Protein backbone atom coordinates (compact mmCIF):
# COMPACT_ATOMS: atom_id res chain seq x y z
CA UNK A 1 0.00 0.00 0.00
CA UNK A 2 2.73 2.47 1.00
CA UNK A 3 6.42 2.28 0.15
CA UNK A 4 8.71 4.91 1.59
CA UNK A 5 12.30 5.02 0.43
CA UNK A 6 15.15 7.18 1.69
CA UNK A 7 13.20 10.27 2.67
CA UNK A 8 14.91 13.03 4.65
CA UNK A 9 13.92 16.39 6.02
CA UNK A 10 16.03 19.23 7.34
CA UNK A 11 14.95 22.33 9.22
CA UNK A 12 17.66 24.90 8.79
CA UNK A 13 20.80 22.86 9.36
CA UNK A 14 19.13 20.21 11.52
CA UNK A 15 18.25 16.83 10.09
CA UNK A 16 14.85 15.91 11.49
CA UNK A 17 14.35 12.84 9.33
CA UNK A 18 17.25 10.90 7.96
CA UNK A 19 17.00 8.32 5.17
CA UNK A 20 13.77 6.74 6.33
CA UNK A 21 12.72 3.59 4.46
CA UNK A 22 9.78 1.29 5.25
CA UNK A 23 6.63 -0.30 3.81
CA UNK A 24 3.07 -0.68 4.94
CA UNK A 25 0.91 -3.48 3.53
CA UNK A 26 -2.79 -3.41 2.80
CA UNK A 27 -4.89 -4.04 5.91
CA UNK A 28 -2.06 -3.65 8.40
CA UNK A 29 -2.05 -1.57 11.54
CA UNK A 30 1.41 -0.12 11.93
CA UNK A 31 2.45 1.75 15.04
CA UNK A 32 4.96 4.61 14.93
CA UNK A 33 6.70 5.23 18.22
CA UNK A 34 9.53 7.39 19.42
CA UNK A 35 10.22 9.94 22.12
CA UNK A 36 9.07 13.55 21.82
CA UNK A 37 10.83 15.35 19.02
CA UNK A 38 11.85 12.10 17.29
CA UNK A 39 10.32 13.29 14.01
CA UNK A 40 7.06 11.36 13.96
CA UNK A 41 4.81 14.31 13.13
CA UNK A 42 7.34 15.51 10.60
CA UNK A 43 7.18 12.11 8.91
CA UNK A 44 3.38 12.46 8.69
CA UNK A 45 3.79 15.94 7.28
CA UNK A 46 6.06 14.57 4.56
CA UNK A 47 3.78 11.62 3.77
CA UNK A 48 0.69 13.82 3.57
CA UNK A 49 2.37 16.40 1.33
CA UNK A 50 2.68 19.28 3.79
CA UNK A 51 6.48 19.05 3.67
CA UNK A 52 8.60 17.87 0.81
CA UNK A 53 11.48 15.47 1.13
CA UNK A 54 14.43 16.48 -1.03
CA UNK A 55 15.46 12.86 -1.43
CA UNK A 56 13.89 9.47 -1.94
CA UNK A 57 10.43 8.46 -3.04
CA UNK A 58 6.97 7.77 -1.62
CA UNK A 59 4.77 5.30 -3.48
CA UNK A 60 1.13 4.96 -2.49
CA UNK A 61 -0.92 2.21 -4.16
CA UNK A 62 1.88 1.95 -6.68
CA UNK A 63 1.89 5.63 -7.54
CA UNK A 64 4.60 8.19 -6.80
CA UNK A 65 3.09 10.87 -4.53
CA UNK A 66 6.05 12.71 -3.07
CA UNK A 67 5.54 15.70 -5.36
CA UNK A 68 1.79 16.03 -4.81
CA UNK A 69 -0.06 18.60 -2.70
CA UNK A 70 -1.83 17.55 0.50
CA UNK A 71 -5.24 17.95 -1.10
CA UNK A 72 -4.37 15.66 -4.00
CA UNK A 73 -2.79 13.09 -1.74
CA UNK A 74 -5.98 13.05 0.32
CA UNK A 75 -8.04 12.54 -2.81
CA UNK A 76 -5.90 9.52 -3.67
CA UNK A 77 -6.97 7.95 -0.38
CA UNK A 78 -4.24 8.89 2.08
CA UNK A 79 -5.58 11.08 4.86
CA UNK A 80 -4.02 12.30 8.10
CA UNK A 81 -5.17 13.82 11.39
CA UNK A 82 -3.38 16.58 13.28
CA UNK A 83 -1.77 16.08 16.66
CA UNK A 84 -2.67 19.65 17.56
CA UNK A 85 -6.28 19.44 16.49
CA UNK A 86 -7.49 21.86 13.86
CA UNK A 87 -11.29 21.90 13.95
CA UNK A 88 -13.22 24.39 11.81
CA UNK A 89 -14.08 26.32 14.95
CA UNK A 90 -17.11 28.22 13.78
CA UNK A 91 -18.75 25.31 12.03
CA UNK A 92 -20.83 22.61 13.66
CA UNK A 93 -19.38 19.16 14.22
CA UNK A 94 -21.70 17.97 11.48
CA UNK A 95 -20.46 20.50 8.92
CA UNK A 96 -16.86 19.73 9.88
CA UNK A 97 -17.50 16.16 8.81
CA UNK A 98 -19.54 17.17 5.75
CA UNK A 99 -16.51 19.04 4.42
CA UNK A 100 -14.42 15.92 4.82
CA UNK A 101 -17.02 13.93 2.89
CA UNK A 102 -17.39 16.49 0.11
CA UNK A 103 -14.03 15.86 -1.48
CA UNK A 104 -15.21 12.37 -2.41
CA UNK A 105 -19.00 12.57 -2.57
CA UNK A 106 -20.87 13.92 -5.59
CA UNK A 107 -23.17 16.42 -3.88
CA UNK A 108 -24.13 18.03 -0.58
CA UNK A 109 -26.96 15.61 0.13
CA UNK A 110 -24.75 12.54 -0.26
CA UNK A 111 -22.06 14.17 1.88
CA UNK A 112 -24.59 14.97 4.59
CA UNK A 113 -25.82 11.41 4.60
CA UNK A 114 -22.28 10.12 4.86
CA UNK A 115 -21.48 12.59 7.64
CA UNK A 116 -24.36 11.32 9.71
CA UNK A 117 -23.23 7.74 9.22
CA UNK A 118 -19.76 8.66 10.35
CA UNK A 119 -20.90 10.62 13.37
CA UNK A 120 -22.83 7.51 14.32
CA UNK A 121 -19.76 5.35 13.84
CA UNK A 122 -17.57 7.57 16.02
CA UNK A 123 -20.39 8.03 18.52
CA UNK A 124 -20.61 11.79 18.21
CA UNK A 125 -24.21 12.10 17.05
CA UNK A 126 -25.15 13.81 20.30
CA UNK A 127 -22.61 16.58 19.57
CA UNK A 128 -23.74 16.97 15.96
CA UNK A 129 -24.82 20.61 16.18
CA UNK A 130 -22.19 21.99 18.54
CA UNK A 131 -19.62 24.39 17.11
CA UNK A 132 -16.11 22.97 16.69
CA UNK A 133 -14.61 25.41 19.15
CA UNK A 134 -16.74 24.19 22.06
CA UNK A 135 -15.41 20.62 22.09
CA UNK A 136 -13.26 18.98 24.76
CA UNK A 137 -9.83 17.63 23.82
CA UNK A 138 -11.19 14.10 23.58
CA UNK A 139 -13.98 15.17 21.26
CA UNK A 140 -11.64 17.24 19.13
CA UNK A 141 -9.49 14.19 18.58
CA UNK A 142 -12.58 12.19 17.73
CA UNK A 143 -13.64 14.90 15.29
CA UNK A 144 -10.21 14.73 13.65
CA UNK A 145 -10.76 11.02 13.09
CA UNK A 146 -14.34 11.52 11.94
CA UNK A 147 -13.42 14.15 9.33
CA UNK A 148 -10.55 12.06 8.04
CA UNK A 149 -12.81 9.01 7.82
CA UNK A 150 -15.30 11.02 5.82
CA UNK A 151 -12.76 11.32 3.00
CA UNK A 152 -12.98 7.52 2.53
CA UNK A 153 -9.28 6.87 3.03
CA UNK A 154 -7.53 3.63 2.22
CA UNK A 155 -4.65 4.59 4.48
CA UNK A 156 -5.27 6.72 7.54
CA UNK A 157 -2.48 8.40 9.49
CA UNK A 158 -3.47 9.02 13.11
CA UNK A 159 -1.22 11.45 14.99
CA UNK A 160 -1.46 10.89 18.76
CA UNK A 161 -5.23 10.64 18.79
CA UNK A 162 -4.90 8.86 22.13
CA UNK A 163 -2.69 11.38 23.88
CA UNK A 164 -4.07 13.48 26.69
CA UNK A 165 -7.19 11.38 27.23
CA UNK A 166 -8.44 10.06 30.55
CA UNK A 167 -8.66 6.27 30.93
CA UNK A 168 -12.29 6.15 29.94
CA UNK A 169 -11.82 8.27 26.85
CA UNK A 170 -8.71 6.28 26.02
CA UNK A 171 -10.66 3.05 26.05
CA UNK A 172 -13.29 4.59 23.78
CA UNK A 173 -10.63 5.72 21.32
CA UNK A 174 -8.96 2.30 21.29
CA UNK A 175 -12.33 0.73 20.52
CA UNK A 176 -12.82 3.22 17.69
CA UNK A 177 -9.42 2.43 16.21
CA UNK A 178 -10.23 -1.28 16.33
CA UNK A 179 -13.52 -0.62 14.54
CA UNK A 180 -11.62 1.20 11.79
CA UNK A 181 -9.46 -1.83 11.13
CA UNK A 182 -12.60 -3.93 10.79
CA UNK A 183 -13.69 -1.54 8.03
CA UNK A 184 -10.58 -2.56 6.12
CA UNK A 185 -8.77 0.74 6.49
CA UNK A 186 -5.01 0.45 6.71
CA UNK A 187 -3.74 2.40 9.71
CA UNK A 188 -0.47 4.10 10.53
CA UNK A 189 -0.70 5.25 14.14
CA UNK A 190 1.57 7.51 16.17
CA UNK A 191 1.37 6.84 19.85
CA UNK A 192 3.98 6.88 22.50
CA UNK A 193 2.30 4.96 25.25
CA UNK A 194 3.92 1.56 24.61
CA UNK A 195 1.24 -0.62 26.12
CA UNK A 196 -1.45 1.00 24.03
CA UNK A 197 0.37 0.81 20.75
CA UNK A 198 1.45 -2.78 21.37
CA UNK A 199 -2.17 -3.78 21.89
CA UNK A 200 -3.41 -2.48 18.56
CA UNK A 201 -0.49 -2.77 16.13
CA UNK A 202 0.48 -5.64 13.87
CA UNK A 203 3.90 -4.13 13.49
CA UNK A 204 5.80 -1.21 15.01
CA UNK A 205 8.33 1.25 13.65
CA UNK A 206 10.49 3.17 16.10
CA UNK A 207 12.05 6.54 15.37
CA UNK A 208 14.68 8.37 17.37
CA UNK A 209 16.39 11.59 16.39
CA UNK A 210 15.04 11.22 12.89
CA UNK A 211 16.51 7.73 12.40
CA UNK A 212 14.49 4.58 11.98
CA UNK A 213 16.05 2.56 14.78
CA UNK A 214 13.94 -0.55 14.84
CA UNK A 215 11.07 -2.22 13.02
CA UNK A 216 9.12 -5.41 13.59
CA UNK A 217 6.41 -7.16 15.61
CA UNK A 218 5.42 -5.29 18.80
CA UNK A 219 7.13 -7.74 21.10
CA UNK A 220 10.45 -7.52 19.29
CA UNK A 221 10.41 -3.71 19.17
CA UNK A 222 9.48 -3.42 22.83
CA UNK A 223 12.43 -5.53 23.84
CA UNK A 224 14.92 -3.88 21.51
CA UNK A 225 17.73 -2.26 23.53
CA UNK A 226 17.91 0.69 21.10
CA UNK A 227 14.25 1.45 21.71
CA UNK A 228 14.66 1.16 25.47
CA UNK A 229 17.64 3.44 25.28
CA UNK A 230 15.74 6.02 23.22
CA UNK A 231 12.87 6.02 25.66
CA UNK A 232 14.56 5.59 28.97
CA UNK A 233 18.11 6.77 28.51
CA UNK A 234 21.45 4.99 28.51
CA UNK A 235 21.64 4.65 32.30
CA UNK A 236 18.39 2.82 32.72
CA UNK A 237 19.35 0.24 30.14
CA UNK A 238 22.76 -0.23 31.72
CA UNK A 239 21.24 -0.62 35.19
CA UNK A 240 18.79 -3.24 33.96
CA UNK A 241 21.80 -4.92 32.40
Amino acid at each position, binding site marked *: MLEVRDISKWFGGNPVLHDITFRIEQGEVVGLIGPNGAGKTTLFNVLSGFYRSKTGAIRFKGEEISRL*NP*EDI*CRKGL*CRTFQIT*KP*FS*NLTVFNNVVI*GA*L*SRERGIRQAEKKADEILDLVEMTSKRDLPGRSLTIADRKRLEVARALATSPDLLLLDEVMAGLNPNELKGMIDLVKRLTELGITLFVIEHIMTVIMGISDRIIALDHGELICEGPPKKVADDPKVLKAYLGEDYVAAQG
Partner: protein
Amino acid sequence: MNKGAKRDVLILIAGVAFFALLPLFVKNDFYLDGFILIFVWGAFAGAWNIISGYGGMVSLGHNAFFGIGAYTSTLLFLRQGVSPWVGMWAGAVIAAVIGVILGVICFRLRSHYFALATLAFGQVASILALNWRGLTEGAEGLTLPIHPSFTKMIFATKLGYVYMGLGLLIAVLLITYFIENSKLGYFLVAFRENEDAARALGVRTGRVRLVAMAVSSALSALIGSFYAQYLLYIDPSSVIRLQIAVQVALFAIVGGVGTVFGPFIGALIFIPITIFLRAKLGSALPGLHMVIYGGILILVLFYMPKGIYGMLREKYFPSSRIFK
Protein backbone atom coordinates in the same frame (compact mmCIF):
# COMPACT_ATOMS: atom_id res chain seq x y z
CA MET B 1 -43.16 22.70 4.89
CA ASN B 2 -42.87 23.32 8.62
CA LYS B 3 -44.02 26.45 10.38
CA GLY B 4 -40.64 28.16 10.54
CA ALA B 5 -40.00 27.60 6.87
CA LYS B 6 -43.43 28.98 5.97
CA ARG B 7 -42.74 32.08 8.00
CA ASP B 8 -39.39 32.52 6.25
CA VAL B 9 -40.94 32.27 2.80
CA LEU B 10 -43.56 34.85 3.75
CA ILE B 11 -40.95 37.26 5.05
CA LEU B 12 -38.91 36.80 1.89
CA ILE B 13 -41.90 37.45 -0.37
CA ALA B 14 -42.88 40.48 1.68
CA GLY B 15 -39.33 41.81 1.44
CA VAL B 16 -39.09 41.42 -2.31
CA ALA B 17 -42.56 42.92 -2.77
CA PHE B 18 -41.61 45.84 -0.57
CA PHE B 19 -38.55 46.75 -2.62
CA ALA B 20 -40.29 46.03 -5.92
CA LEU B 21 -43.46 48.03 -5.25
CA LEU B 22 -42.45 50.87 -2.96
CA PRO B 23 -40.49 52.75 -5.65
CA LEU B 24 -43.68 52.95 -7.71
CA PHE B 25 -45.18 55.21 -5.06
CA VAL B 26 -42.12 57.35 -4.53
CA LYS B 27 -42.40 60.44 -6.64
CA ASN B 28 -39.26 62.20 -5.46
CA ASP B 29 -36.17 61.48 -7.58
CA PHE B 30 -33.95 62.13 -4.60
CA TYR B 31 -35.39 59.14 -2.79
CA LEU B 32 -35.41 56.98 -5.90
CA ASP B 33 -31.68 57.65 -6.10
CA GLY B 34 -31.56 56.24 -2.60
CA PHE B 35 -33.10 52.98 -3.76
CA ILE B 36 -30.67 52.74 -6.65
CA LEU B 37 -27.70 53.34 -4.39
CA ILE B 38 -28.91 50.77 -1.87
CA PHE B 39 -29.20 48.19 -4.65
CA VAL B 40 -25.85 49.05 -6.24
CA TRP B 41 -23.94 49.02 -2.98
CA GLY B 42 -25.83 46.06 -1.60
CA ALA B 43 -24.97 44.07 -4.71
CA PHE B 44 -21.36 45.24 -4.75
CA ALA B 45 -20.88 44.44 -1.06
CA GLY B 46 -22.38 41.03 -1.80
CA ALA B 47 -19.82 40.49 -4.55
CA TRP B 48 -16.96 41.46 -2.22
CA ASN B 49 -18.39 39.11 0.39
CA ILE B 50 -17.92 36.07 -1.85
CA ILE B 51 -14.13 36.11 -1.74
CA SER B 52 -13.56 38.16 1.41
CA GLY B 53 -16.46 37.05 3.58
CA TYR B 54 -16.81 33.38 2.68
CA GLY B 55 -13.21 32.90 1.60
CA GLY B 56 -11.66 35.12 4.27
CA MET B 57 -9.27 36.68 1.75
CA VAL B 58 -9.73 40.32 2.69
CA SER B 59 -9.52 42.42 -0.46
CA LEU B 60 -8.86 46.14 -0.35
CA GLY B 61 -8.65 46.32 -4.13
CA HIS B 62 -12.22 45.77 -5.29
CA ASN B 63 -12.37 49.36 -6.50
CA ALA B 64 -10.28 48.12 -9.42
CA PHE B 65 -12.88 45.57 -10.54
CA PHE B 66 -15.74 48.05 -10.14
CA GLY B 67 -13.75 50.58 -12.17
CA ILE B 68 -12.80 48.03 -14.83
CA GLY B 69 -16.51 47.36 -15.35
CA ALA B 70 -17.40 51.04 -15.51
CA TYR B 71 -14.59 51.95 -17.88
CA THR B 72 -14.90 48.91 -20.15
CA SER B 73 -18.58 49.28 -20.95
CA THR B 74 -18.34 53.06 -21.22
CA LEU B 75 -15.28 53.03 -23.48
CA LEU B 76 -16.65 50.26 -25.67
CA PHE B 77 -19.80 52.29 -26.12
CA LEU B 78 -18.10 55.64 -26.73
CA ARG B 79 -15.30 54.37 -28.96
CA GLN B 80 -16.86 51.36 -30.71
CA GLY B 81 -20.58 51.90 -30.34
CA VAL B 82 -20.94 48.60 -28.50
CA SER B 83 -24.14 48.41 -26.47
CA PRO B 84 -23.51 48.47 -22.71
CA TRP B 85 -25.55 45.29 -22.47
CA VAL B 86 -22.68 43.64 -24.28
CA GLY B 87 -19.94 45.87 -22.90
CA MET B 88 -20.78 44.98 -19.32
CA TRP B 89 -20.05 41.33 -20.05
CA ALA B 90 -16.77 42.27 -21.67
CA GLY B 91 -15.93 44.16 -18.47
CA ALA B 92 -16.92 41.15 -16.40
CA VAL B 93 -14.66 38.86 -18.40
CA ILE B 94 -11.71 41.25 -18.18
CA ALA B 95 -12.25 41.69 -14.44
CA ALA B 96 -12.50 37.94 -13.91
CA VAL B 97 -9.28 37.32 -15.81
CA ILE B 98 -7.45 40.04 -13.90
CA GLY B 99 -8.95 38.77 -10.64
CA VAL B 100 -7.66 35.28 -11.37
CA ILE B 101 -4.20 36.60 -12.26
CA LEU B 102 -4.16 38.60 -9.03
CA GLY B 103 -5.22 35.47 -7.19
CA VAL B 104 -2.53 33.31 -8.76
CA ILE B 105 0.07 35.89 -7.76
CA CYS B 106 -1.22 36.82 -4.31
CA PHE B 107 -3.12 33.89 -2.84
CA ARG B 108 -0.01 32.50 -1.25
CA LEU B 109 0.07 35.59 0.95
CA ARG B 110 -1.59 35.43 4.30
CA SER B 111 -4.05 37.85 5.88
CA HIS B 112 -2.39 41.24 6.25
CA TYR B 113 -0.05 40.68 3.36
CA PHE B 114 -2.88 39.83 1.01
CA ALA B 115 -4.83 42.91 2.13
CA LEU B 116 -1.79 45.10 1.48
CA ALA B 117 -1.11 43.54 -1.92
CA THR B 118 -4.70 44.08 -3.05
CA LEU B 119 -4.56 47.63 -1.73
CA ALA B 120 -1.51 48.24 -3.91
CA PHE B 121 -3.26 46.60 -6.85
CA GLY B 122 -6.32 48.82 -6.46
CA GLN B 123 -4.08 51.82 -6.18
CA VAL B 124 -2.21 50.92 -9.38
CA ALA B 125 -5.55 50.62 -11.17
CA SER B 126 -6.64 53.99 -9.94
CA ILE B 127 -3.33 55.62 -10.90
CA LEU B 128 -3.63 54.08 -14.36
CA ALA B 129 -7.16 55.42 -14.77
CA LEU B 130 -5.92 58.84 -13.79
CA ASN B 131 -2.83 58.92 -15.97
CA TRP B 132 -3.56 56.80 -19.02
CA ARG B 133 -5.23 59.78 -20.60
CA GLY B 134 -5.23 58.36 -24.11
CA LEU B 135 -7.61 55.68 -22.90
CA THR B 136 -9.55 57.17 -20.01
CA GLU B 137 -9.30 60.95 -20.43
CA GLY B 138 -7.80 60.99 -16.94
CA ALA B 139 -9.39 63.24 -14.36
CA GLU B 140 -11.61 64.88 -16.97
CA GLY B 141 -13.64 61.71 -17.10
CA LEU B 142 -15.96 60.29 -19.74
CA THR B 143 -19.48 61.49 -20.45
CA LEU B 144 -22.20 59.32 -21.93
CA PRO B 145 -24.57 61.31 -24.15
CA ILE B 146 -28.07 61.35 -22.69
CA HIS B 147 -30.23 59.67 -25.29
CA PRO B 148 -32.53 57.40 -23.35
CA SER B 149 -32.86 54.10 -25.12
CA PHE B 150 -33.13 50.58 -23.83
CA THR B 151 -30.44 49.23 -26.14
CA LYS B 152 -28.02 51.81 -24.79
CA MET B 153 -29.04 50.98 -21.23
CA ILE B 154 -29.99 54.57 -20.62
CA PHE B 155 -33.40 54.83 -19.05
CA ALA B 156 -35.72 57.81 -19.34
CA THR B 157 -36.85 57.63 -15.73
CA LYS B 158 -35.19 56.68 -12.48
CA LEU B 159 -37.55 53.73 -12.21
CA GLY B 160 -35.70 51.96 -15.01
CA TYR B 161 -32.49 52.16 -12.98
CA VAL B 162 -34.30 51.16 -9.79
CA TYR B 163 -35.49 47.91 -11.34
CA MET B 164 -32.28 47.10 -13.08
CA GLY B 165 -30.44 47.71 -9.77
CA LEU B 166 -32.92 45.49 -7.97
CA GLY B 167 -32.38 42.83 -10.60
CA LEU B 168 -28.62 42.94 -10.10
CA LEU B 169 -29.00 42.78 -6.34
CA ILE B 170 -31.30 39.77 -6.57
CA ALA B 171 -28.87 38.10 -8.96
CA VAL B 172 -26.00 38.59 -6.50
CA LEU B 173 -28.12 37.28 -3.62
CA LEU B 174 -29.15 34.22 -5.61
CA ILE B 175 -25.58 33.51 -6.68
CA THR B 176 -24.38 33.86 -3.10
CA TYR B 177 -27.16 31.62 -1.90
CA PHE B 178 -26.27 29.06 -4.51
CA ILE B 179 -22.57 29.25 -3.61
CA GLU B 180 -23.26 28.90 0.09
CA ASN B 181 -25.19 25.72 -0.58
CA SER B 182 -22.69 24.23 -2.98
CA LYS B 183 -19.34 22.54 -2.60
CA LEU B 184 -17.68 25.84 -3.48
CA GLY B 185 -19.22 27.52 -0.46
CA TYR B 186 -18.34 24.70 1.94
CA PHE B 187 -14.78 24.63 0.64
CA LEU B 188 -14.34 28.40 0.85
CA VAL B 189 -15.49 28.39 4.44
CA ALA B 190 -13.25 25.42 5.21
CA PHE B 191 -10.28 27.34 3.85
CA ARG B 192 -11.21 30.42 5.87
CA GLU B 193 -11.59 28.44 9.08
CA ASN B 194 -8.37 26.46 8.77
CA GLU B 195 -6.28 26.13 5.67
CA ASP B 196 -4.22 23.13 6.77
CA ALA B 197 -7.23 21.15 7.91
CA ALA B 198 -9.02 21.95 4.66
CA ARG B 199 -6.11 20.78 2.53
CA ALA B 200 -5.66 17.64 4.60
CA LEU B 201 -9.31 16.84 3.85
CA GLY B 202 -8.79 17.17 0.12
CA VAL B 203 -10.03 20.73 -0.38
CA ARG B 204 -8.25 22.29 -3.37
CA THR B 205 -7.97 25.62 -1.63
CA GLY B 206 -6.14 27.36 -4.47
CA ARG B 207 -8.61 26.45 -7.17
CA VAL B 208 -11.61 27.13 -4.94
CA ARG B 209 -10.42 30.63 -4.15
CA LEU B 210 -9.66 31.37 -7.79
CA VAL B 211 -13.23 30.48 -8.74
CA ALA B 212 -14.56 32.68 -5.94
CA MET B 213 -12.26 35.50 -7.01
CA ALA B 214 -13.40 35.24 -10.62
CA VAL B 215 -17.08 35.33 -9.61
CA SER B 216 -16.52 38.16 -7.16
CA SER B 217 -14.57 40.36 -9.57
CA ALA B 218 -16.87 39.67 -12.50
CA LEU B 219 -19.94 40.62 -10.46
CA SER B 220 -18.18 43.75 -9.21
CA ALA B 221 -17.49 44.74 -12.81
CA LEU B 222 -21.09 44.15 -13.90
CA ILE B 223 -22.27 46.41 -11.10
CA GLY B 224 -19.62 48.97 -12.04
CA SER B 225 -20.93 49.04 -15.61
CA PHE B 226 -24.45 49.58 -14.40
CA TYR B 227 -23.30 52.32 -12.06
CA ALA B 228 -21.61 54.10 -14.97
CA GLN B 229 -24.84 53.92 -16.97
CA TYR B 230 -26.65 55.42 -14.02
CA LEU B 231 -24.18 58.27 -13.48
CA LEU B 232 -23.70 58.85 -17.24
CA TYR B 233 -20.38 60.38 -16.32
CA ILE B 234 -17.41 58.56 -14.87
CA ASP B 235 -14.02 59.66 -13.65
CA PRO B 236 -11.43 57.95 -11.45
CA SER B 237 -12.83 59.52 -8.33
CA SER B 238 -16.38 58.27 -8.89
CA VAL B 239 -15.65 54.67 -9.92
CA ILE B 240 -12.12 53.56 -9.06
CA ARG B 241 -10.65 55.41 -6.10
CA LEU B 242 -9.49 53.44 -3.09
CA GLN B 243 -12.25 54.73 -0.81
CA ILE B 244 -14.69 52.65 -2.83
CA ALA B 245 -12.90 49.46 -1.82
CA VAL B 246 -12.98 50.51 1.82
CA GLN B 247 -16.63 51.47 1.68
CA VAL B 248 -17.78 48.24 0.11
CA ALA B 249 -15.94 46.25 2.78
CA LEU B 250 -17.39 48.44 5.48
CA PHE B 251 -20.98 47.84 4.33
CA ALA B 252 -20.42 44.10 4.17
CA ILE B 253 -18.76 43.92 7.59
CA VAL B 254 -21.41 45.95 9.36
CA GLY B 255 -24.18 43.93 7.72
CA GLY B 256 -22.42 40.62 8.36
CA VAL B 257 -19.73 38.91 6.30
CA GLY B 258 -20.04 35.32 5.22
CA THR B 259 -23.82 35.55 5.08
CA VAL B 260 -26.12 35.86 2.07
CA PHE B 261 -28.09 38.91 3.13
CA GLY B 262 -25.64 40.67 5.46
CA PRO B 263 -23.88 42.87 2.89
CA PHE B 264 -27.21 44.09 1.55
CA ILE B 265 -28.39 44.87 5.08
CA GLY B 266 -25.19 46.90 5.51
CA ALA B 267 -26.04 49.02 2.48
CA LEU B 268 -29.62 49.27 3.67
CA ILE B 269 -28.40 50.81 6.92
CA PHE B 270 -25.67 53.08 5.61
CA ILE B 271 -27.15 54.57 2.44
CA PRO B 272 -30.19 56.07 4.21
CA ILE B 273 -27.91 57.54 6.88
CA THR B 274 -25.88 59.22 4.15
CA ILE B 275 -28.95 60.45 2.34
CA PHE B 276 -30.55 61.72 5.51
CA LEU B 277 -27.44 63.62 6.53
CA ARG B 278 -27.00 65.06 3.07
CA ALA B 279 -30.60 66.21 3.03
CA LYS B 280 -30.34 67.72 6.50
CA LEU B 281 -26.93 69.27 6.35
CA GLY B 282 -26.21 69.76 2.67
CA SER B 283 -22.51 70.43 2.54
CA ALA B 284 -22.44 72.16 5.92
CA LEU B 285 -20.51 69.49 7.80
CA PRO B 286 -18.34 67.71 5.27
CA GLY B 287 -17.04 64.37 6.45
CA LEU B 288 -19.61 63.92 9.22
CA HIS B 289 -21.20 60.91 7.56
CA MET B 290 -17.76 59.30 7.18
CA VAL B 291 -17.06 59.84 10.87
CA ILE B 292 -20.30 58.05 11.61
CA TYR B 293 -19.39 55.25 9.16
CA GLY B 294 -16.05 54.74 10.90
CA GLY B 295 -17.65 54.80 14.34
CA ILE B 296 -20.29 52.24 13.43
CA LEU B 297 -17.63 50.05 11.80
CA ILE B 298 -15.52 49.94 14.94
CA LEU B 299 -18.49 49.41 17.24
CA VAL B 300 -19.71 46.52 15.12
CA LEU B 301 -16.26 44.93 14.99
CA PHE B 302 -15.99 45.08 18.76
CA TYR B 303 -19.49 44.25 19.88
CA MET B 304 -21.13 42.40 17.00
CA PRO B 305 -18.39 40.58 15.12
CA LYS B 306 -21.00 38.68 13.11
CA GLY B 307 -22.53 41.92 11.91
CA ILE B 308 -26.02 43.21 12.39
CA TYR B 309 -27.67 40.66 10.13
CA GLY B 310 -25.48 37.89 11.46
CA MET B 311 -26.67 38.64 14.96
CA LEU B 312 -30.33 38.97 14.07
CA ARG B 313 -30.20 35.72 12.14
CA GLU B 314 -28.72 33.86 15.06
CA LYS B 315 -31.51 35.14 17.24
CA TYR B 316 -34.52 34.83 14.96
CA PHE B 317 -33.59 32.43 12.16
CA PRO B 318 -31.06 30.07 13.69
CA SER B 319 -31.81 27.13 11.42
CA SER B 320 -33.51 28.82 8.49
CA ARG B 321 -32.78 27.37 5.07
CA ILE B 322 -33.61 30.71 3.44
CA PHE B 323 -32.05 33.34 5.67
CA LYS B 324 -28.44 32.34 5.37
